[in-house]
């Protein structure tokens, strides 16, 4: 008579492994989120139980979260004069200044054609979000 394999004998006394507590839901989305969308997550009623058959109750309201903003801001120069360029951005911007202010070091300005005067410095004089309201 052949003996059973060692592995069979070794595992007989081990406790039955419990199902997991935690899960990862990975969302597959189409399109690029722009920070305005909302995702809601819940369990389906009576779909999840413990080992006694007690059903997990859906959250009320469902868990909801803002989708991230994956759209880069775009800049559009809308008005230029001798020494000033008014720039509109597609969304509020954050720069390297105090409180996230956009400052002169955040902006590169160059002259495409050789001017009579050189570009000495640039600065950001004012910033308004009024166009986003």
């Amino acid at each position: 008579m052949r003996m059973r394999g060692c592995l069979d004998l070794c595992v007989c006394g081990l406790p039955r492994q419990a199902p997991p507590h935690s899960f990862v839901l990975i969302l597959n989305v189409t399109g690029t989120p722009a920070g305005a969308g909302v995702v809601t997550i819940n369990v389906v009623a009576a779909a999840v139980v413990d080992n006694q058959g007690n059903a997990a109750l859906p959250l009320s309201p469902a868990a909801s979260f803002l989708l991230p903003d994956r759209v880069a801001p775009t800049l559009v120069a809308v008005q230029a004069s001798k020494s000033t360029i008014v720039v509109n951005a597609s969304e509020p911007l954050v720069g390297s200044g105090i409180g996230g202010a956009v400052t002169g070091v955040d902006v590169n300005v160059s002259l495409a054609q050789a001017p009579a005067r050189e570009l000495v410095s640039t600065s950001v004089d004012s910033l308004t979000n009024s166009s986003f309201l």
Partner: protein
Amino acid sequence: MSIAPGTVVDTSSKPASAAPVTVTLVDTAPPSFTVQFHRGNLSATVTFTEPVLAAAGGNLTASAFGVAVSSAVVSLAGYTLTPLEVRGGWGV
């Protein structure tokens, strides 16, 4: 649970046994859960207070969860579920 010695007798005055009696309470509490959303990779960790199964039997699948996206520029193509953690055991 036990009876204090000598405090309970039958009709013949014989004292009841003081040996403790053990009763296992039935778990009637439903599992609850929390959801943590990870904006970086568009995933969420769902953590239950105890091990859970699909009500129909077997391991949980993505169909046990309802996920919806409300956005003008993004639509939900689907979602997958992966077990993250196994703790302890339920005994033999």
